[in-house]
């Protein structure tokens, strides 16, 4: 599915584009969303520019209700402040807005996501002798705890969707039912993982991630091969609706504006 090619009369799109579009659809017009940089930021701004014009986007740099015209490279690009309703100190952001329980959705990525949607952004390998030292938790451990619900997005591979994360940076569903509550949390935790192959949702009973929708053109084997545990499929397995022409256009325009803006020195 290369961008621009034609396939059976449909608008054509890349797996990454579908992933972003599918993630954007999980956001509602009345959401207040704590946005991570990269894929989450893309999805959130796509939602804002399509079906959720009133969605409130918050970046941990303190920018409240921001409407960037281009995607920020960092969590604190000038664009975010200039288009925000207001910009608050970082202490206030984490204490009043996140910890205060004012955020409906947190949107996270991760280097490893396991079958219970626990997220690792700290190390691959042993903490004290890491194979790869990753950037770390940043805002994620408390986004995972304090937002009413969490969305996750990641490219699907057996290195990323693993049976057990090497390090729990941010708690998903622990090792099953009751673990969030035992950790003192009352929030829902991860409700959806969007990859470039499918959608996964926690099983209501076991909390294990289950494939609930395959993206167009993806088959079960592809998902099984790319997943680090014996992944289950929902009884009623859906097919993700492809991106609409409008969604693709808005997303591509956003990327074009962004590339132009960041090319400058």
């Amino acid at each position, binding site marked *: 599915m290369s961008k621009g090619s034609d396939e059976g009369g449909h608008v054509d799109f890349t797996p990454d584009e579908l992933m972003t579009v599918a993630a954007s659809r999980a956001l509602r017009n009345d959401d207040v969303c704590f946005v991570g940089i990269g894929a989450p930021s893309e999805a959130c701004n796509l939602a804002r520019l399509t079906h959720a014009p009133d969605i409130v986007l918050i970046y941990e740099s303190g920018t409240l209700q921001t409407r960037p015209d281009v995607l920020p490279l960092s969590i604190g690009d000038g664009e975010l402040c200039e288009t925000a309703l207001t910009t608050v100190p970082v*202490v206030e952001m984490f204490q009043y807005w996140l910890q205060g329980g004012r955020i409906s959705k947190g949107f996270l990525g991760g280097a490893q996501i396991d079958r219970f949607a626990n997220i690792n952004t700290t190390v691959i390998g042993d903490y004290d002798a890491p194979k790869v030292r*990753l950037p770390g938790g940043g805002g994620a451990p408390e986004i995972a705890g304090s937002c009413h619900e969490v969305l996750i997005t990641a490219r699907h591979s057996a290195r990323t969707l693993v049976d057990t994360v090497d390090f729990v940076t941010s708690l998903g569903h622990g090792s099953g039912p009751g673990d969030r509550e035992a950790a003192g949390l009352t929030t829902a935790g991860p409700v959806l993982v969007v990859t470039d192959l499918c959608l996964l949702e926690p099983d209501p009973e076991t909390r294990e991630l289950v494939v609930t929708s395959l993206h167009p053109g993806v088959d079960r084997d592809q998902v099984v091969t790319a997943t680090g545990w014996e992944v289950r499929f929902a009884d009623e397995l859906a097919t993700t609706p492809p991106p609409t022409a409008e969604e693709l256009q808005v997303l591509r325009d956003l990327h074009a504006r962004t590339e132009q803006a*960041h090319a400058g020195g």
Partner: protein
Amino acid sequence: MAEFVSLRDAVARYVHDGDTVAMEGFTHLIPFAAAHEIIRQRRRNLTLIRMTPDLVYDQLIGAGCARKLVFSWGGNPGVGSLHRLRDAVERGWPAPLELEEHSHAAMAAAYHAGAAGLPFATLRGYAGSDLRRVNPNIASVTCPFTGEVLAAVPAHRPDVGIVHAQRADRAGNVLVEGIVGVQKETVLASTRSIVTVEEIVDDLAAPSPNSVVLPAWAIDAVAVAPRGATPSYAHGYYERDNAFYIAWDEISRDREQFEAWLGEHVLSAGPTGAPV
């Protein structure tokens, strides 16, 4: 009470080998000029505190100034890894780097507690996170009214806090605007403080009665450092050099290439900012 000094004198006077140093600026207003002066003056064994180490600490670490890093997110924002940080942690080059790792929420709370003269901060945090397991400075505290158990971290109390800001007036009062991060907390939590500014003006021209102003009597040194946050940015003055952030990935990936860059752009460069 703020004294106007050159950046060279400010670093010479207030930053000592072995100090705990916090250089803040959340993506915005990162005090690069001050960091480069610390590298030029070859400070060693620093404990560096910063929420997002960013390129500024990647450079200090690669230059061998740091012994320990207290942080919460150590990446090149939107680009990838900090290669000098990784080289220090994964392979001990140029020196091993001890890590004390927190979350943003905890770091912010620790600065808040430091500025507020408290020994520790309480937060709803780290629930179920392995960070608790690897960082002994994450403890618990019990609410005396409800019995709830919450996370606690020690307050940040750096020896020196360094921030960059838009401007100072002639009395040494400083205006910070835009993404204000934890700059105020950093100055107030620190025993000594250095503020670099884009310019000194007759009138701060604070736009609102509630503008973020650091009074002169809460600061030790004010040093002029035009474009002192580059490649970060200064709201109202210049934009973020996103292209340099992207280029840094290549520059910093290789030890020799990094050292060549450091030699050319930091060590043999003159100090930014003239005496007043």
